[in-house]
């Protein structure tokens, strides 16, 4: 952030340091994430940083808040153990998943579920919007909510979750709880004018879906469809984030009515999971967001990065339906010069009408 003139130490880092010394830290942290003014202050630096890096979309975190502060991290409201880690290369603080807090279904049933109507949800969204407006809408603030798959398995860890999945009634309860939460939040956010809502989920990994397409059709997609219907009724659009090879789920995702899908992971094991082939097949039904390979960004040459970025814009952007973005994340292994190479390509080739290759 220093490179872009944003002082570091104002956000997560100082928050973590301060919490170590504060009494009533859970209560103070809960106040902080429920207070629109306090949240807006945090978003100001974050969105300003995005503006300087030339990223157009920032998120406001409507779910995933802490339930309990633990040594080196938090247990979030879904029951995920999240720890703050420092990347050795440049000291970046990363929040990393360290397993599920809930050991079994009995523990799940006694866990207090996140309430969609808590004031902090709307406060987070409105804080993001407030900063967006202060910045003359140069950044689009997109509220992010947990989806059905990731919060379901990460509350337990995958091994314990697989046991839950072996008991259909238990599995249905867990997925339904997360579906109900996401649906209610979608309605609340859309009712308050959110143009785009990010369903922050993960359906798969490099070798395919986390569970069978049949299980997705039983537990996840009925909710996803309802979420899309309710969003569309209110004039909002749905952006779904899911890593992994989603080939076996793609038709379902499109049929549910998802408007845009991120990040079209470029390093899956499936050569058919290729953004150029997918755009050809589904380009009139869904918007594609992403695909600049994080591996290439970290390890490739600048000219490889430039060539691929140019190819994405020139082949996918004509006619619309493509948002230029990372194929997973801009992680700390990616140096500033590499990111700036991507942005140079965007500036040169990313304005309509798109120049042919």
């Amino acid at each position, binding site marked *: 952030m220093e490179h872009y003139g944003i002082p570091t130490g104002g956000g997560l880092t100082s928050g973590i340091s301060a919490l170590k010394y504060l009494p009533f830290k859970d209560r103070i942290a809960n106040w902080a994430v429920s207070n629109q003014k306090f949240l807006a202050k945090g978003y100001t630096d974050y969105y300003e940083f995005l503006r300087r890096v030339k990223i157009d979309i920032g998120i406001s975190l409507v779910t995933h808040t802490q339930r309990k502060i633990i040594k080196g991290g938090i247990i979030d409201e879904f029951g995920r153990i999240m*720890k703050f880690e420092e*990347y050795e290369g440049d000291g970046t603080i990363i929040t990393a998943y360290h397993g599920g807090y809930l050991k079994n279904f009995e523990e799940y049933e006694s866990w207090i579920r996140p309430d969609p109507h808590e004031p902090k949800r709307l406060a987070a969204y409105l804080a993001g919007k407030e900063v967006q407006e202060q910045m003359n809408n140069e950044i689009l603030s997109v509220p992010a909510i947990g989806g059905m798959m990731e919060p379901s398995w990460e509350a337990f860890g995958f091994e314990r979750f697989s*046991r839950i999945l072996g008991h259909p009634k238990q599995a249905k309860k867990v997925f339904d709880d997360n579906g109900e939460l996401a649906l209610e939040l979608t309605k609340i956010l859309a009712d308050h004018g959110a143009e785009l809502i990010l369903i922050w989920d993960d359906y798969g990994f490099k070798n395919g879906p986390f569970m069978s397409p049949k*299980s997705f059709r039983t537990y996840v997609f009925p909710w996803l469809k309802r979420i899309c219907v309710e969003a569309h009724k209110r004039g909002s659009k749905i952006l779904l984030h899911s890593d992994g090879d989603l080939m076996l789920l793609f038709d379902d995702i499109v049929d549910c009515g998802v408007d845009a899908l991120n990040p079209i992971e470029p390093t899956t094991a499936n050569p058919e999971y290729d953004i150029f082939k997918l755009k050809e097949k589904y380009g009139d039904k869904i918007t594609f967001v992403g695909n600049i390979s994080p591996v290439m960004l970290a390890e490739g040459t600048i000219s490889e990065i430039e060539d691929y970025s140019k190819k994405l814009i020139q082949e996918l952007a004509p006619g619309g339906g493509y948002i230029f973005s990372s194929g997973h994340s801009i992680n700390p292994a990616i140096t500033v010069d590499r990111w700036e190479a991507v942005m140079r390509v965007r500036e040169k080739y990313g304005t309509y009408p798109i120049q042919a290759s």
Partner: protein
Amino acid sequence: MIIELDVDNIASAVQNQLDACVDPFTVLEALTKGMDEVGRRYETNEYFLAELVLAGETMKEAFAILKPHLTTSNADARTQIIAATVRGDNHDIGKNILSTMLLSAGIDVIDLGMDCPADKIVQAVKGSGAKVVALSCLLTMTMREISTVDKALRDAGLRDDVKLIVGGAPLNMAIAKELGADDYGADAIDGVRRIKALLEV
């Protein structure tokens, strides 16, 4: 029962077999056949990751009952390998399922856990004489750790005695080789196959 993923009842079923004086190795063979079938179903998209992991959980339940009954001499004959998730990386689904699949394939795993520093791996190789080190890494920013482990094994004079196989989201065979690994497993099933080949078992 492995194929049916009956995690709740496998332990009692194994106990019943043992109580009926069925040879523990016959029970183990049946379990292994079950895991092989699960692996086949995974590769043909009948089963997916959740089923593969649940089969692993089922196998673990069975093995906990069975292990004390497998005689010492035969247990000693089992080959050992080392598995770890590289330093800075806290993802273990892939490593854990590989470990369970290896268990059923007759290969014991010294599991060094997640976020594992290279020197701990070197010490484990020295201490165990393991011929294979399997490394998992999910993050682009941690994949360079594979080279660190490769170098640490070289510096310790152990690299010629041990094969390094890797797996994880940002990797493929070319990147794996470039980072100093000998082999790359595309998934847990492929990993087991390749580790067996590296061990020549």
